[in-house]
């Protein structure tokens, strides 16, 4: 395996008394898109600012392409790092046209080279016809693409995107997410995205790190984060679901109230251990012929499907995703069964630890 392009080794960032980033590590391969996902105040933007060079490290080190960028003694100034950044509010220069903004970082190039690169970038983000417009004349999505083109123009070694879609409406967000991913892949860029929106993270990133209290709880592909969360925090942050108590009965099976749930892979607990099992709404299948019955106590209509909250006889509740032609009233009992290809279980008293 080739050495990673970017490596963060146990970096920490502290203000007076508060630890904002706590011994955080991850690495990114060339051409990959990584994402830091977490709620507000989890330290994700600070990590990005450390990489960009706007914050100094209290501990740890950052290496980019074999070059030490920062540790506790060394701090390479932001303007010499060749790391591009797209800010949440885009930070466009109101006194420059779209072309002027995109060409801003190209002053080292010859004039005709600047013009060529600028028009290439305009074409890449599909704004060639707006080269002479000013930022205030553009829509939010267009401004976003200008910011992206401006950051990509000097061919940065790494691109950072801080909540790039948070100022856009939801419909635009989804479309642009895919578009930006395509642009980044076409440019062969390596990028890190910061967001609190799981859909955005899953749509754009190859690798996602779920952050909480300055640490990465799990650094993995979106698929694995959903189906094999490392701990309760990740499980509750990513997707929906409930935890039901159970007892391990075999290498890959756990006895719970709904019967024996088995998965394709062993879960690693000794038989007889009390555990908690994560059940996603798509693990619970509506089946009228099933002997297992649960009472509808809540229902949320989502168009294509219902998300039912079901109460089991023991009083525990579950979530079930059911096709929307199965219209059941509150209080009705419906038949369910489990379909757990990925069985996720946590030890009852195990503390949350990053994996």
């Amino acid at each position, binding site marked *: 395996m080739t050495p990673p392009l970017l490596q963060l080794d146990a970096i920490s960032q502290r203000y007076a*008394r508060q630890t904002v980033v706590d011994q955080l590590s991850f690495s990114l391969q060339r051409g990959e898109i990584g994402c830091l996902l977490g709620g507000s105040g989890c330290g994700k933007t600070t990590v990005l600012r450390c990489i960009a060079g706007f914050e100094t490290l*209290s501990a740890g080190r950052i290496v980019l392409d074999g070059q030490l960028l920062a540790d*506790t003694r060394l701090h390479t100034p932001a303007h010499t*790092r060749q790391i591009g*950044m797209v800010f949440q*509010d885009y930070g466009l220069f109101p006194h420059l046209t779209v072309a002027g903004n995109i060409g801003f970082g190209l002053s080292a190039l010859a004039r005709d080279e600047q013009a060529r690169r600028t028009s290439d970038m305009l074409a890449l983000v599909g704004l060639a016809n707006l080269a002479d417009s000013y930022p205030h004349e553009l829509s939010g999505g267009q401004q976003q693409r200008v*910011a992206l083109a*401006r950051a990509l123009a000097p061919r940065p070694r790494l691109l*950072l995107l801080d909540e790039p879609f948070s100022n856009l409406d939801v419909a635009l967000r989804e479309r642009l997410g895919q578009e930006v991913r395509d642009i980044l892949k076409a440019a062969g860029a390596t990028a890190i995205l910061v967001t609190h929106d799981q859909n955005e993270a899953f749509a754009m990133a190859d690798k996602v790190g779920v952050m909480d209290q300055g640490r990465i709880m799990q650094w993995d592909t979106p698929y694995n984060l959903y189906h094999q969360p490392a701990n309760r925090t990740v499980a509750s942050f990513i997707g929906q679901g409930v935890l039901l108590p159970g007892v391990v009965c075999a290498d890959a099976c756990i006895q719970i109230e709904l019967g024996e749930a088995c998965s394709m892979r062993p879960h690693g607990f000794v038989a007889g251990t009390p555990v908690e099992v994560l059940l996603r709404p798509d693990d619970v299948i509506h089946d009228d012929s099933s002997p297992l019955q649960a009472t509808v106590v809540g229902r949320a209509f989502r168009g294509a499907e219902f998300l039912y909250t079901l109460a089991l006889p023991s009083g525990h509740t579950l979530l079930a995703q059911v096709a929307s032609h199965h219209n059941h009233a509150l209080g009705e009992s419906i038949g369910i069964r489990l379909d757990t290809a990925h069985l996720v279980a946590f030890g009852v008293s195990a503390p949350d630890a990053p994996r």
Partner: protein
Amino acid sequence: MNSNSLSPSPATAALPGWRLPRFALSRWQWLAAGLSLVTLIPLAVILASFLHIDGEIWAHLSEFVLPRLLANTALLLVGVSLGVLLLGVPLGWLVAVHEFPGRWLFSWALMLPLAMPAYVMAFTQIGLFDFTGVVQTWLRDTWGSSAWMPPIRSRGGVLLVMSLALYPYVFLLARDAFATQGRRALEAAQSLGLNPWQGFWRVALPMARPWLMGGVSLALMEALADFGAVSIFSFDAFTTAIYKAWFGMFSLSAASQLASLLVLLVFVLIWLEQHIRGRRAYHAGRLAAPQPRLPLRGASAWLACGFASLVLLLAFVLPFGQLLVWAARVWQADLDARYIDFVWHSLALAGMAGALVVCVALALSYAQRRDPQPRTRLLVRLATLGYAVPGTVLAVGLFIPVAWLDNLLLAWLGEALPSGTTAIFKGTLAVMLLAYLARFAAVGFSSVDAAMQRITRSQEETARTLGESGWRLLRRVHVPMLRGGLFTALLMVLVDVMKEMPITLMTRPFGWDTLAVRIFEMTSEGEWERAALPAVTLVLTGLLPVLLLAHSSSSAQAPSR
């Protein structure tokens, strides 16, 4: 937590056993500290004058001069406070919360007196209301007598003129405070069972108090710094006493000791202002968008209109009209080559000082931006402290160290200089420009910094990720985006320098007479008419920033887009 102390910081690692001294300044802080010397040295020199008190002078001062000065100053402070409150608060309240005939006009026209320096207001009001003036003459012709009119050349006259010239400070702040919270305060009060009148006194007025007091302290600083108006009224104030001590008694030490008393007074005012401003910042976060106004009907509408018209008439229309009439009478004689010289000198000085102040303001604002620490903020505040220091004090405070430096240089260089040299820096434009810089740095700084605040951190950081830093960053990002703010700063300083009387009078090199100096010379001989043409010129240039202010505040008052 303690891993912090385990990992050595770069400085201590490089120099084991050494700690950086606590007063170490960053280069931005050094810049601000250096610039603050222009204000701090004169202040220090003035305050140090207490170290060598001349007993004889002091005895003379305390026996003959000080009692009257202190009484007059106390009267001035109390009278002007009351005057500007009585004019500014009701007008601000009417214009901000109510709708009545002419409201839109009054909402900006009541700022116009800001264009008229207090000394211009002073001699035109005397011209208007004196025994031989238009008003009394008209009264006598119409009613047979004008004896019941109180004399304008009196203490009451000084207070009236000062209040008319300075109420706009209170009006502006009151208007904005009431516009953003007045209507809501009234509604809250009414829902609790108070009538509108009680609502004003018990809710709206107390809520606006920090703004009102801010306006009053601005007006008081202007009143304390005023030299021209009080000298026209022969009203003994600290500023005129300092001038007389220096240019009449030729006692620099008496001048500087009087100046030190004035500085102490000003410090008390600054302290009050800062105290109040701190609370205003707290309130400002909760200001809402302007709300719709309450229509006044019938008699109250016409009363409101009448009151506002009367103030506008007295504070701007009549005096400006009188100036125009005088100017029309004398312009053929006065509009000569000398007059062109006055205008040229005024413009040249103002232009040089404006450019200097704008550069300094930009440097200070950028320093604060690049190094946003409490210490930088403090140094910048010190560098802009001069706005509160009267021009007379700065003139004396700069002259003393410059004269000292000159003597030192003369002694050193001795033979190397052409024989007969008695001054090197003394009486040069450089000293005058330094005094202007000290006095008006804050004016320039506030508009540059307001524009600087609008540049977001992400715009700056974007430029840094794109490879720019230092002065190139300033040139490529900040300066183009600050263009508007720099222009406003230049304009404001330009106009303020043209109006400035005591600094110009006391530090100008030989032959550098300006419009303000001409007005001083003509008015000290009671030749109001001959002061009119330069005064009209000053008022017309003074209108530029006022109209700019009116425009920007009316667009800020408009409902959000």
